[in-house]
Structure formats: C-alpha cells, structure tokens
C-alpha cells in the first residue's frame, strides 16, 4: 500500500466539509501518514498537480468551475465528491427555480456585471464529470471520511448505507419526530449520519439524498397521517434535493407546494 497523493478543492460551498477533515484532530497524524496532501488551499500553501485522489467540495456555480473540475478529473485517478453541495447540489440548488437576474435583483439590487458570473443552476459535480465516490451529508461525517480514506488507501471501495435514516434513529433510541407531527424526511433519506438531527431535535432534511428504494407516495401518506399536508414533504425535499435530476425523482409523486 503506497501513500496516495491527495488534493482538496472547493467550489460554491461553505467549506464546512473541509473543516470536517481538519476536525479529524486525533486522527490527523495518522491521516498524514496514510496520505500525502499536495493541495489543500484552506490549510496549506503547497500546491501541486500530481495528485491521485481529489476530494472536491461544493457545487458548480460559475462557468469557470466547470472547466476547473474537468481539469481535476483529468489529473485525478479517483475523484470523490464531498458533501451535499458536490453530490446533490445541496442548499445551493434551492435557488435553481429562479433566474439569475431575479437573484441579482434581490441581493445586489440588479447589479452583477463585473461583480460575479453565475451559472443558471447550481449543480452537483456529476453534472460535469464522472464522480467515482460520493461522501454525502451536509456536512460530511468525519468518521465516514476517515473510513473512505482508509478504504481508498487500502485499494478498495468505501461503503455507503443503502437504508433509511429511520434505521439509525431507531437504533439510537430517538423518539420519532414524525410521530409528533414534525416534518421529518428520515423515511426516504439515506443514512450514514447517525441520525444526528432527530436526536438533537430537528427533522431529517435528507442532506444525504434518498436511500436505495425511496417511496415518496408513502412519505406523503405518512405526512398526511401525522397532520401535515403532503405538499410539505415536497417543500422539505427542496432543501437539499432540488437539483433538476434529483428533483425529478420525487416531483411526480408529491404535490408541489404553492408558490415555489
């Protein structure tokens, strides 16, 4: 097992996933022994292009991002998308149903030339390049990241749970929020986070996307049974799963919320 050269890159994002990497803390010395970091702008000055594994965070939001990620793809043997923005579009894609002109009007009073250029849609990396592995979550889970590095360094593939967040919620004994009328998406959402949100009093918002066999009709029914409109389920899914191709998976099954 040789020590793979790895690089970190980020596009439109909060850089929280990279921070999760820095939060490896006690595992950092081991991590640095297991891999050689040749590019990590947030933490190191060195920048080299001879990486084998590229961890890429963030959505593609500028025209230049597309070129850059294609360049990364050419150089990297393995490209790993980090986090909801890179895997799904994430919160960035909430805006995708509005025009850039409208957005600029809202935030910059209509001015945008010279200030920034923006793609009409915030998109996941997979819209532009082949992604080898995805580490889901907003943010990624630090242990899952370390497990992925361990697997890749050993020469094999990381594993991702195929099942729902409800599984993890139930295993940790969290009382179900949905049963109390809170709009929780856990039943369709992909696990791996340890169901941290319900345990800390917030509904699951499917930041890891959906599990292998989501049943959106049944989700609507579950919402209705617990006193919420079916459209609330769609509205919640817009938070992280609003990128065009992701949205198509649930849009037909659920009535769209008014006004959005």
């Amino acid at each position: 097992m040789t020590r793979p050269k790895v690089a970190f890159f980020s596009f439109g994002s909060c850089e929280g996933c990279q921070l999760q990497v820095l939060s490896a803390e006690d595992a950092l010395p081991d991590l640095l022994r297991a891999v050689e970091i040749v590019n990590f702008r947030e933490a190191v000055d060195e920048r080299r292009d001879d990486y084998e594994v590229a961890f890429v965070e963030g959505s593609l939001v500028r025209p230049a991002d597309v070129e850059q990620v294609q360049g990364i793809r050419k150089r990297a043997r393995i490209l790993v998308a980090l986090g909801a923005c890179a895997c799904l579009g994430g919160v960035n894609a909430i805006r995708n149903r509005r025009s850039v002109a409208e957005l600029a009007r809202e935030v910059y009073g209509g001015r945008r030339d010279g200030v920034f250029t923006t793609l009409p849609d915030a998109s996941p990396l997979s819209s532009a390049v082949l992604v080898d592995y995805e580490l889901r979550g907003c943010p990624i889970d630090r242990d899952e990241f370390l497990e992925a590095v361990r697997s890749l360094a050993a020469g094999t593939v990381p594993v991702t749970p195929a099942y729902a967040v409800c599984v993890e919620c139930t295993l940790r004994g969290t009382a179900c929020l949905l049963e109390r009328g809170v709009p929780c998406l856990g039943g369709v959402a992909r696990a791996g986070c340890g169901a941290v949100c319900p345990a800390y009093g917030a509904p699951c918002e499917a930041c890891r996307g959906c599990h292998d066999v989501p049943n959106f009709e049944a989700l609507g029914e579950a919402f209705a049974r617990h006193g919420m409109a079916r459209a609330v389920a769609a509205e919640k899914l817009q938070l992280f799963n609003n990128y065009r191709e992701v949205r198509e998976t649930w849009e037909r099954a659920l009535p769209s919320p008014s006004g959005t």
Partner: protein
Amino acid sequence: MGARASVTVRHLTRIEGHGNLVVEIEDGAVRRCDLEVVESPRFFEVLLKDRPWDEAPRIACRICGICSVAHATASVQAVEAALGVVPGPRLRALRRLNLAGEWLQSHVLHLGFLMAPDAFGAPSIVPLAGSHPDLVKRVLRLKRLANEICRTVSGRHVMPVSYHAGWSGYWPQVAELEALQAGLAAARADVAAFVAAFGALAWPAVERATEQVAAVEDDGAYPMMGGPLRTTAGRAAAPSAYRELLEEYLVEHSASKHVRPAGERGGGGATIRVGALARYALAHDRLHPDAAAAARRLGLDPATTNPFDAVPAQVVELVHAHAEAERLVTALLADPAPEAPVPPRRPQGGEGVGIVEAPRGTLIHDYRIGPDGRVARANCVIPTSQNLASLEADLRVFAPTLLDRPAAEITHALEMLVRAYDPCISCAVH
C-alpha cells in the same frame, strides 16, 4: 527591484474561501491594491426567502462551516425578535456556551493552522508537527475540546442542529456536562501554552486609524451574544437600527458587499473594523481575569489599531472563551433540567434583527417574517464584508513600506496581513 512591480496571488491559501490579492506598484507608489473576491454568491438571502421560519437557523448556518454556530445563533435571535420570543436565561447560557466553543474552535484554527505557520516560518501546520510538536499537539487537543463543546450542545459543530426559537432541541445530560467540565479543566495548560507561544512573537506594525465596532452586551458581559452596536468613535445604535451605523455598498472587484460607516461619515473613505481587536478595544475591561492577565502579558494596548494586533487579541479571547465555557458549564450543571420552551408572543411575525459576535466580528441577521410563517425578507451583514474596506486600506498603507524587498517577501507580507484579518470569504459572499 525595478520601478514597477505587481503582486497577484490567485486563490490565497490558508484563508476560508476564494480570494485574489492584486497589488500594482509603479514608481514607488501603490497604484492598485485590491482583494478580489471571486467566489460566486450562493444567494442565501434568497434561499431563506419563503422558507418556514423554523428552518432559518438550519439554512443560515450553511453560510459558513467555520462560524455556523454564530450564524445559527444570529438567525434564531432574528427569528425570536420577529416573533416576540424572549429566550430564558438558561437557554441563553446554553447558546453562549456553544458560541464560546465556536470561538475556541475558530481562534485555535486561525492561530494554530493559519497564523502559526507564518509565525514560525512554515508553509502549513504539517511541517510544524515536526518542528513544534508540543504546540501542534495542544492545537489539536484544544480543537477537539472545542468540537466536543459544540457536539454536546448542538449535535455537531459544523451545522448545529438544535436551534429553535424559544427552545433547544437538545439539552445536554449531566454526564455530558461533567465530561466537558473535566475536559475544560484539563485544557487550562494548553491555553496557557498558547499564550506563552504567541507572547514571544513580533508582528509588523501598520498604523492607520479606523472606526472599530462591536455589539456590546447590556449586562456587562464581554461581547458575544449580541447587543447594541458601539464604536470607538463613540457612536451607538440599537440592534434593530444597525443601518444607522453601517452602510452596505457594492464595489467592482468583489462579489462581497463592502460596508462603511453610514451617512456622511462614509464619504471620505472612512472604514470600520470588527472582530477580536474591535471587541478588545471596546470591552477589554470586561474580560475574564485570566484573559486580562494574558492581555497584559502580551502587552496588548486597548488603543491599538494595528491589524496585526488581532493575533494577540485572538489569543486573549481564546483564554476568555475557555474561561467562559468553564463558567457556563458550571452554571448549567447547577440547574441541569431543560428550560420550558417560550412560545411566540407575536406568531403573526414581523421584523427582527439578530446580532452576535462571531469569532471574526459582528454578525447581523435581519429578517421579516410574514403572517404565513415564512421568511419574507432576509439580509445578512457579515463580519468579513465589514472588514474588507479596512483591509484594503491597510494593504495600501502597508505595501509602500515593503518596496525595497524581493517580490516573494512582499507577497508573503501582504498575505500575512490578509490572514491577520482572518477573512472568511464564503461568509462574505454568501
């Protein structure tokens, strides 16, 4: 070195987000000195619009991974102000504990990962692990402790999940608080070592007057959880009237808005500055005694405007945040039962401003919540936006003093100045 020189650093390293430093020097004069913010906006103000208000803290915290607790806190306070919710004292203590954790996390990250390499002449923390293993060990240990504080209060540090108007989705168990108490006690030596390590360092001096701003709390505490804005020029404004003090404006070379003093004062290129140094200037007399002692030891003058003094100011605040966390954990342990939720007095909504002191400075979230329970308007004023004009002005003062040096050194010195401001560009553009 000829008469012309230009320095362009694309994608500055060891800062959060994407920024380019562009400096053009001609005939010994600085012609251009811009910090280009090339990050594309994610339009968070629009993302918040039309969403149910309970989601606001969870969306807003995604503005920035490093200060997501500050964003969640500002956001939930804005929602509470709009709905007429006055959170109870223990809920405020819980949130303050989380913020203290984030300050600790952010200052340790900035000092240890981003500034220490400059200070000790290394390109990153990685080689430092070889040359200064003790310091690096302490950096990592303190960072883990900071993470543990936030995990205990809100499930995780990056994207906290427990924030709701008037209540907390989680209330730490006694055993968890006791574990924090033990961890904080054990970390005292690490904090002291930080003061010692940074006390020995010398930084350049850049002298330029600027108006410093912080949200100074009513109850006499060191600025953290927000309150009326005060400035070193003696101006003041209630949170809801922040616009009387601060004015956002657009510049050509930056996707981030800039901020200047509001009204005619903004006309003559006057700048403002927020952050550790501003808080220290305005409230150094409110520091925990240990932090005040550290300030004396570091020789930090409350009247200083040298941006590099932000480094010792952060060290002082790190001591304060640690002491504050210890105090709050003890207070929460004295009465560990969850506080009853406070219902909205104005469920039909209205306007609300939430202010906190993020590690990097004053952070303002300003919402209107409509009768449909949704966010109708949102505006976020970010510490880094408030500092950008000041940062550029300081670069213009600093650059001419470097002209006799080789280009690489000029670049490095200017980069150091940028880093001393601890800019967070993802935040600034949001």
